[in-house]
């Protein structure tokens, strides 16, 4: 018997097609800003990039050329400080949350981490200013690292906590059945099992705070000179870009674009690195 194609069927097909097109359109819409950002930053920034940009210090106003060597090193130092604060604190906190999820302190910490995650970065900056700048009466790399670290902690806590929860309970049972203490089981079995994911989480968190400007404006401030001292103001890519972008000099604008493309490039390297490291660790842990 031939299948009758009714008006209803036809309408259904048209509707299906329409929804498909609408979905595809939304994907385009979502991707468009990303593509545009990349296009503008790279089209303006790449021509301004040169080897000198990576190796030279900023030149005084009016002198053409110069680079952001100090700002790149500065950003790396700030990220190192942020990681040194956020990774141990964040992982320890996540372990506590995973081990004692029912305790009131744990529930409070989960809630606090979610709130902290949503706090505008400028507020984190003010907080770090009050805690780490005012008492010492100077801007410093340490204060900037502290601000970024505070921003990282909730991200590290939440990703680590989720990954620890994914480790099968049978692994813990196996360790305990061999006479391991609870702490030992966590340290030597649960954490290593979750390690690949934790590393990814930390790298993602680092990439996220690497692009922050607001918390650095009044903590690590900026520095036009070469400085790796932790108790002194230190340059960073983001603050340098900000400073150059709002200045009235054509040459500085070009430098700001170049700095922005370096930052975007670094993000790309970070995410590729995160993937490779994760995959290598996973190979140890899975067949």
């Amino acid at each position, binding site marked *: 018997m031939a299948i009758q194609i009714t008006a209803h069927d036809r309408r259904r097909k048209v509707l299906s097609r329409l929804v498909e097109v609408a979905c595809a359109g939304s994907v385009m819409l979502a991707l468009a800003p990303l593509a545009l950002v990349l296009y503008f930053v790279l089209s303006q920034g790449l021509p301004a990039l040169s080897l000198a940009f990576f190796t030279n210090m900023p030149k005084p106003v009016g002198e053409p050329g110069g680079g952001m060597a100090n700002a790149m090193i500065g950003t790396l130092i700030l990220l190192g400080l942020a990681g040194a604060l956020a990774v141990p604190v964040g992982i320890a906190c996540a372990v506590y949350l995973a081990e004692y999820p029912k305790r009131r302190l744990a529930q409070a910490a989960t809630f606090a981490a979610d709130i902290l995650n949503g706090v505008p970065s400028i507020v984190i900056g003010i907080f770090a200013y009050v805690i780490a700048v005012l008492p010492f009466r100077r801007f410093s790399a340490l204060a900037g690292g502290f601000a970024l670290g505070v921003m990282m902690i909730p991200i590290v806590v939440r990703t680590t906590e989720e990954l620890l929860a994914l480790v099968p309970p*049978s692994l813990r*049972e196996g360790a305990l059945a*061999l*006479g391991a203490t609870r702490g030992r089981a966590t340290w*030597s079995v649960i954490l*290593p099992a979750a390690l690949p994911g934790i590393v990814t989480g930390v790298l993602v968190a680092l990439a996220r705070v690497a692009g922050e400007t607001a918390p650095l404006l009044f903590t690590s401030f900026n520095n036009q000179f070469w400085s790796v001292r932790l108790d002194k103001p230190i340059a960073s890519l983001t603050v340098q870009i900000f400073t150059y972008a709002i200045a009235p000099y054509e040459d500085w604008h070009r430098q700001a674009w170049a700095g922005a493309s370096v930052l975007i490039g670094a993000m790309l390297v970070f995410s590729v690195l995160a993937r490779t490291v994760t995959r290598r660790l996973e190979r*140890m*842990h899975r067949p």
Partner: protein
Amino acid sequence: MSSDAPAAAEAGIRIKTEVKPTSGPVPDASVAIEIQGVGIAYGDNQVVHDVTMDIPEQRVTAFIGPSGCGKSTLLRCLNRMNDLIDSARVMGKIRVKGQDIYAPGTDVIDIRRRIGMVFQKSNPFPKSIFENVVYGLRIVGVRDRATLDEACERSLRGAALWEEVRDRLKDSALSLSGGQQQRVCIARAIAVEPEILLMDEPCSALDPIATVKIEELIYALKEKYTIVIVTHNLQQAARVSDRTAFFWLGRLVEYGSTSDVFTKPREKLTEDYITGRFG
């Protein structure tokens, strides 16, 4: 095992497992675990009622019964794994070699070192085969490489796995097959030389060939260890165990030598279960 056991196994699927009769009936072996009036409850829900039995040393004792009859729960009390469940409550007395393991102040860690456990689903750690096997030694602080190497080889031989993995001890234990993983778990359990080995349906996730290997292993292991095995597989209980306990709705219905339980059960309930009328 007495010579009646093969007849019991005959009824079901025959896998190439020799049921080796031990020389003559085994007279009163000394008691490894005394269970006296034990009841276990999760919150208000009592799942094991008033179980009293003695588990003999260097014998294989099988717990059988339909799902939810409390046999795994009871097994997990023997090394205090039920401590992990907050709501679990144990009444009565359990003595291991005379020591009341639920007495206040008992060192649970020590109990678990003396009583090894193999789980239903193999749970190798995401580490190398070597690190899996020596884990129990590492946590008591053994560092000496030669000791660890020796223990690794001895345990893997004990678990009949040495020949298969000797060249790849550094590989992840997760790269092994299911049956091999379960034998890694057995090797891990015997590496610390426990007095008693608890096995919670160790073959339920394995294919028949791997099952045969594990069963042969259990047979060899009872030379040294007291083994308590929970199984859903009646043929397996008949093949590997010396004594069988049949549980039903949280009660111990019948407990005796495996040949008696399978060939001339005292209780109607046992007979019905063994002949497949329910369960």
